[in-house]
């Protein structure tokens, strides 16, 4: 498997798009830290950019890459190689490439300008978000038959998780304002990887005071070691679940 991953990674890294993506992230993070005197604020601005750009790029690039490597996958499947090896070497190869792009583009400057716990949370959260959306892209790719449909599905999931979901939660919260919704909002945010990552970082930034009682409940939960642990497990589940279902489908798929 490592051998195949090696070649998948080699192919992706030489892709100009990934290089451009790395440079863009690097530029964004460096400028945020440079022009913002308060690293707290820099981190916050960076967080908002990351939560929009990274899922979008990861999900689209992975879907396109999956379909572009379709013939290559065919070629491998004619070799003495199991479907499991083929699927996971593609997945891990993409995870590695996009993960490295993120670590160089965002991780490196963050750790240089702000090597604290909050910086580390931002980097690990962003990394898990990258992997989550690669996984979602793979699931979208194996359940569809052509590239356009796969990108459609992938974009729909991105739109839902990044934009629609928060709107829906907000609507519920506003309509149910008469009831105590603090616990419920905790559950809502746990069900969306983006919210999880966002809150994890926000809690490290001590801006929860702006969020009223909900903020206090969040602060209580997400600041405890236990809460952080659970959040990371949930984020990991957001990676593992789509990959696993994707594999189940891929192993029976006609190529």
């Amino acid at each position, binding site marked *: 498997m490592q051998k195949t991953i090696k*070649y998948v990674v080699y192919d992706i890294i030489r*892709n100009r798009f990934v290089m451009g993506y790395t440079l863009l992230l690097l530029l964004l993070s460096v400028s945020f830290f440079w022009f913002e005197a308060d690293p707290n604020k820099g981190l916050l601005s960076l967080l908002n950019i990351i939560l929009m750009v990274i899922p979008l790029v990861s999900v689209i690039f992975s879907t396109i890459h999956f379909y572009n490597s*379709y*013939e290559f996958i065919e070629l491998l499947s*004619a*070799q003495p190689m199991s*479907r499991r090896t083929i699927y996971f070497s593609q997945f891990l190869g993409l995870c590695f490439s996009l993960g490295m792009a993120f670590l160089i583009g965002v991780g490196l400057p963050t750790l240089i300008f702000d090597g604290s716990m909050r910086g580390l949370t931002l980097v690990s959260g962003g990394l898990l978000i990258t992997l989550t959306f690669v996984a979602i892209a793979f699931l979208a790719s194996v359940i569809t038959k052509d590239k356009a449909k796969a990108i459609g599905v992938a974009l729909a999931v991105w739109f839902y998780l990044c934009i629609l979901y928060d709107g829906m939660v907000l609507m519920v919260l506003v309509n149910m304002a008469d009831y105590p919704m603090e616990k419920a909002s905790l559950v809502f945010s746990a069900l969306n990887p983006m919210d999880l990552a966002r809150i994890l970082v926000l809690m490290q930034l001590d801006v929860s005071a702006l969020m009223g009682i909900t903020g206090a409940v969040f602060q209580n939960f997400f600041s405890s070691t236990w809460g952080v642990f659970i959040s990371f497990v949930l984020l990991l589940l957001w990676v593992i679940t789509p990959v696993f279902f994707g594999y189940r489908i891929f192993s*029976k798929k*006609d*190529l």
Partner: protein
Amino acid sequence: MMIKFENINKSFGKLEVLQNISLNFEMGQSIAILGPNGSGKTTLIKSLLGMVIPDSGQILFDGKNIKNEFAYRSEIGYMPQIGNYPPNLKIAQLIDMMKDIRKGKKEGIIIDEEIIALFKLEEMYQKPLGTLSGGTKQKVSAALAFLFDPKVLILDEPTAGLDPLASELLKSKILEEKRKGKLIIITSHIMADLEELSTHVVYMQDSRLRLFKEMEALKEEFGEDRLSKIIAQIMQNSKKKTELVK
């Protein structure tokens, strides 16, 4: 060693691609799979490679069911109809990768680089695969299919995109492998090539197996020496039949 298809059925949605196909291939045979476009030739080949999974029936390779298996493919060299490879990999890297993958899968692996030499692929070793023309990609596919001296060769339209010289070189290589007693399965629309290369003919139409006969027997039966004429006759007959049924 032999390959056995037992009552293979496959449909893509409502479209039936293979209906109740049963076939028996043995070592030393060179089989031409013929049929109009969309008659199920490529699907049949892909089901043998495990790329398409039949809805029912089984395929035995050397007596073993190939379902959920992959090790048996170390005995197969496959040349696909369209070879598309990772665009940024160089030819040399692709070949190294294939060697890497096959290493350790089979004991005493033999590397046969004759095709690489014949097609002078070494001169292009440092070219990324994305920049290659269709014909050159076809040459790379051929090189990969023959690289590990497999017992079974599956060639899907091997000469389709090749120039006349390359096509002749490839054909002589196929004949050489045939003489070694390998099992060769070829699909093509170029009758003259098939006449030269194959000992048996499989004819498929409308996702069914219409005919599986030895080349010589076929020629005798039709009293005709040219494969193209025989096939034209078969196609016409079965067309009439389907019209009658309708």
